[in-house]
């Protein structure tokens, strides 16, 4: 086999491995951080300090009985979790997570870290993420249960509403970078202004970053926007009727979506793998650190901010977030046009 093909396959395998483990690590991190914020230990018994807890959870879920409600749609009920986890994995396909590297000198030619380098990479991420809504909606509909149906309906309404602001915030960054390729967007953020402030787009697009993060939280159905699974009203929302592996795929796709959202935020606003002290070849360390910080913020937000009311969510999305993102886009477009003219 061709060596370059083998290396590329290796990188794809590595990315897949990291994503799978990211979901396990995030479950653990979530429970540990939640425990810390509620002044208790969190999982502590499985392994040293409870670090093997995700493994125990997964094993338990694997050996549970798979149930399907009698009135459920046989095909769609099975298809829904598969769809949502496939979309979650596929969305990461065009997200680069490191500059060219030789893996500590192991390879004679440097390789790019990331599955695929497509010139419309950002749009691919956006397109595949928007496919994820089908998994949740179908799960809600196919279960033939009122709680699931309401969860699914809420999810689709919420995702349609926030996708708009999300995409508009992204468009402003695309204008600044002048490229749809995520790798080129990251590379346009290399260096620093006045040798001090890094040329990250978060400093040019503070409003855009805030809009992106809020819309991203709503897109991944996380607290304070976790209406599709609001326990107090909907039992567990769209996944009420699911059990065993089919159930496990839903939280897994949620955690992978969180990782993708944070990775894209890092690439677009936080300079990707560019950072001080480290040569750019080891930039993936910076990348992982930045993604970790954003993910910590995600979890922090979940355990400190209470859930909105549903009408408040819609009002906020359409009356505040969307106009703000449009204003951000228009101002950015005007400034870019003025500076280029």
């Amino acid at each position, binding site marked *: 086999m061709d060596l370059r093909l083998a290396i590329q396959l290796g990188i794809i395998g590595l990315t897949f491995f990291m994503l799978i483990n990211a979901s396990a690590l995030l479950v653990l991190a979530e429970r540990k951080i939640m425990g810390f914020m509620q002044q208790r230990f969190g999982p502590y018994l499985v392994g040293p300090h409870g670090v093997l807890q995700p493994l125990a959870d997964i094993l338990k879920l694997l050996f549970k009985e798979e149930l399907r409600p009698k009135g459920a749609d046989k095909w769609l009920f099975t298809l829904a979790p598969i769809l949502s986890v496939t979309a979650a994995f596929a969305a990461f396909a065009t997200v680069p997570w490191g500059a060219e590297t030789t893996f500590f000198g192991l390879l004679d030619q440097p390789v790019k870290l990331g599955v695929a380098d497509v010139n419309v990479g950002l*749009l691919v991420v*956006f*397109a595949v993420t*928007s*496919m994820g809504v089908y998994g949740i*909606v179908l799960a809600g*509909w196919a279960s033939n249960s009122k709680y699931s149906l309401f969860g699914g309906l809420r999810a*689709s309404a919420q995702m*349609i509403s926030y996708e708009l602001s999300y995409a508009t915030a992204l468009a402003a960054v695309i204008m600044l970078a002048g490229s749809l390729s995520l790798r080129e967007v990251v590379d346009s953020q290399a260096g620093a202004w006045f040798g001090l402030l890094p040329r990250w787009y978060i400093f040019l697009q503070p409003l855009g970053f805030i809009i992106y993060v809020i819309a991203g939280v709503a897109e991944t159905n996380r607290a304070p926007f976790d209406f599709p699974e609001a326990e107090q009203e909907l039992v567990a929302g769209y996944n009420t009727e699911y059990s065993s592996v089919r159930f496990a795929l839903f939280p897994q796709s949620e955690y992978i979506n969180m990782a993708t959202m944070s990775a894209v935020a890092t690439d677009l606003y936080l300079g990707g793998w560019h950072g001080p002290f480290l040569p750019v070849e080891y930039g993936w360390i910076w990348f992982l650190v930045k993604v970790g910080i954003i993910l910590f913020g995600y979890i922090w937000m979940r355990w400190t901010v209470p859930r909105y009311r549903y009408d408040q969510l819609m009002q906020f999305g359409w009356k505040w977030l969307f106009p703000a993102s449009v204003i951000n886009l228009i101002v950015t477009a005007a400034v870019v046009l003025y500076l280029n003219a």
Partner: protein
Amino acid sequence: MPETLVFYTFSAVAIGASALVIGQRNPMYSVLLLIASFGALSGLYIQLDAPFVAVAQIIIYAGAIMVLFLFVVMLLNAPREDAAEWDRSHPLRHPNVGRFGALLATLLVVQLAWALAKVSELESPVASRADAATVGSVLEMGRVLFTRHTFAFEATSVLILVAMVGAVVLARREGDR
């Protein structure tokens, strides 16, 4: 050889899914099969070296419009459409409607036959032509869309507006004002 295989796979999925959209009676499945058909089409666009069109196809049709379709089908909660339950006096049951449909179908077959007969006369595949870059590059595509094809672009938006107004007029019942 792999390219041909991929092409035939995508084509088979697109045609098969489209046929099933009208071939089976569960509207929920119809929506999903239509999405599958759009996905297969976008795969064909990638093979034509037009990644932007492929991604736009997914974002606009599969990601936005079909979500609305799904939403409506779910809210109507129509598990199946059953011809036997139809109102006999429904205007669509009139025999002339069937005749008109048959005429349109014949016309479509004739057009298809004509187009397929012309295929061999095409001088070269798209990718080898001089303006092939316009299909692939977003920049070129935007430039062409907003200069050479401005009129068609704007006319399309007016057309969509007309369709929207038409839908509102049709959906509003008499005496609703």
